[in-house]
């Protein structure tokens, strides 16, 4: 056991990371599953946690950041409370997924490269393929899959969440 979490070094914050590292035997070869577990916990990969992981595994922070930024599943920016993922796989694309994305982004006032709303309520992303091609086009809101979408029904999903959050 190389690095015990020090109580004064952001104390409680790293307790969970410590448990994750222990579970994976602090092996650098387990870096991908370790980061997956960390992201599960924090919903993204905070910079200080990545540095901590590097120290604990005795590898360079560059390697950890390299892996964290290489895979699209990892996020190094915090995500909004509700995650809207729009499938833009081939089947969804030919069945007009892009107008749905445009409509949702416009409603949430997301412009340019921005994917998360200012109030941290929504993150809107595209994914390559969710494998539900028979239902194209597909939108996934907080892990719930919705098939055969249109810009109108996509907007409705978002409006429902907004209404729920406001009430």
């Amino acid at each position, binding site marked *: 056991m190389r690095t015990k979490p020090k109580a004064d070094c952001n104390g409680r914050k790293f307790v969970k990371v410590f448990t994750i590292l222990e579970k994976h035997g602090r*092996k*650098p*070869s*387990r*870096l*991908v*599953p370790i*980061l*997956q577990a960390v992201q599960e916990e924090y919903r993204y990969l905070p910079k200080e946690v990545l540095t901590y992981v590097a120290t604990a595994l005795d590898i360079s922070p560059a*390697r950890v950041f*390299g*892996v964290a930024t*290489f*895979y*699209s*599943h*990892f996020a190094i920016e915090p995500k909004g409370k509700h995650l809207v993922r729009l499938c*833009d*796989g*081939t*089947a969804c*694309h*030919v*069945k007009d997924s892009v107008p749905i994305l445009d409509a949702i982004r416009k409603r949430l006032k997301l412009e340019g490269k921005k994917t998360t709303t200012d109030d941290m309520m929504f993150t809107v992303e595209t*994914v*390559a*393929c*969710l*494998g*539900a*091609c*028979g*239902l*194209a086009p*597909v939108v996934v809101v907080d*892990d*719930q*899959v*919705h*098939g055969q979408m249109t810009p109108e029904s996509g907007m409705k999903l978002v409006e429902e969440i907004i209404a729920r959050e406001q009430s």
Partner: protein
Amino acid sequence: MNTQLILDPAAGNGGTTQRRVIVCAGTGCVANGAYKVVQAFADQIAAAGISVTTEFKAEESQHDLRLNKSGCQGFCQMGPLVTILPDEILYNKVKVEDVAEIVNQTLVGGKVVDRLLYVDPATKKHCKGINDIPFYQRQQRFVLKECGVIDPESIHEYLYHGGYAAAKKAILKMSQEEIVQEITKSGLRGRGGGGFPTGRKWEAARVQKSAKKYVICNADEGDPGAFMNRSVMEGNPHSVLEGLMIAARAIGADETLIYVRTEYPLAVARMKSAVEDAQKMGFLGDNVFGSGQSLNCEVMEGAGAFVCGEETAMIASIEGQRGMPRPKPPFPAQSGLWGKPTIINNVETLAHVVRVINQGADTFKKLGSAASPGTKTFALTGHVANTGLIEVPFGTTLREVVLNIGGGITDRRGKVKPNGFKAVQIGGPSGGCLTQEHLDLPLDYDSLRSVGAMVGSGGLVAMNEKTCMVSIARFFMDFTQRESCGKCVLCREGTRQLLSMLDDVIEGRATGETLVLMEKLALAVQKGSLCGLGKTAPNPVLSTLRYFRHEYDAHVFHKHCPTGQCKALAKPSIDPVKCKGCTACAKKCPVGAISGEKKQAHVIDQTKCIVCGVCADTCKLEAVAGV
């Protein structure tokens, strides 16, 4: 040890007479509310006073009915699907409200609920079960046979259907050489894309002298528009695990790993529970089938990188590195995971292995073509009437698959259009497109390669005549450019340049020189990249240039997109012959660009038009073209 539970698959263990209600719980049906339907069945069946169980029992059960969820049955568009056995009734698009009627009419009264049956759009015939539906009738299912029938979370049901007999035979009765010989003799080729002979791959690893060897199951199905592996893992996870065990025995490996795409949470969960159940039964662990040999299996989730489908990149990812490929040789069979001999096989390949060992190479070879024996699963999607998962022998023609099994090409509104066929993209971002002239081409590894396409993992995306092929090429290039790992300059920079040239074509900035340069660069990227991703990335561009040159020419020289999909070059117009002057489009146009008298042909004012396409959507006579 529970080896006595393993039955002879040839004995035909029939099935109990118990009545069954099977609700499809693949990703597609779940999205359409399958779980709620299962709950409704449980409630209604109980209310009707029928004794019901959800558990599989090999012996005659004291319950009258068994209710279970199954994996993907392939007919995703019609979900949620409910199958009733032994009546062989298939109800589609079943909603919670329909359940009471099914219970009362069918389960109690023994009658068929006509309105929930599939109606063949061609003959308008109500089809009672899968044997009447052309979509299923024309398929030959082996890998998918048990998917949609058995409960994927019950190892006992898999055993009852002859499961693990092949693994037991391979581990207890066959030598390593015999297994490899049988696989080689079957001519089985890798179903993941390349089509490399599986037997040769195994032999290369078998002859290596090493105390440690690995087998990896490649379940990182990254090709957008393909979901064959997902369905097999969700529907029959034990068949994949059994194939993996046989592969391990054949090369002398004691550790195996299943690398599943993280975007498939249900497949991950089902594979993990299959591994746990096999461990509990003593099929995995320190004393496999009592042979004294040890064999372990771990399920690992990917992290969202398409390139990890490449063998050496996958190995890097498992070792905790960025998923970047390395040059071959040495091949993984010589030096793979942790420098040890490793074989990597696709999910579907492993499922086929089970059949080869059970039924023998000769039976396996009876289907398919000489150089590509056996069957192949395809994910049929896009503009076809029946989207879903299919399995046909190699050598089946494209016409049979798309027009007969797929039920024909559909228009924007989902209606079948007899002459709507434009192209089929096969093999995803690494493949190419097939056109009208290829409709009678037999689908197999070699014939597809000869026309500049490839089987790939088996994604088939059908496209109607309203699809712009330049924009499809751009779509794939955008994908590969983002997924390029960045190691090889030509792949990293070349795909980026190709993408920007395609943008020039789509937005009207390109000249004749752009097309020449594009072709040249595409060939250079093919040559100068290390792995399959880069080598095949230019395929969609080259293949669309080859078969749809006229569309590129229209964009470049006439600054016009014939389908109107490229907004910058769309020129919507109204066909004065087809237009009956109903004024519907003029009323809907948000900018008032359409004018014309009632019952007279209307005209679009190009200076006002914002190319939104509302007019085309509104017109029932399809008089609006070019948008």
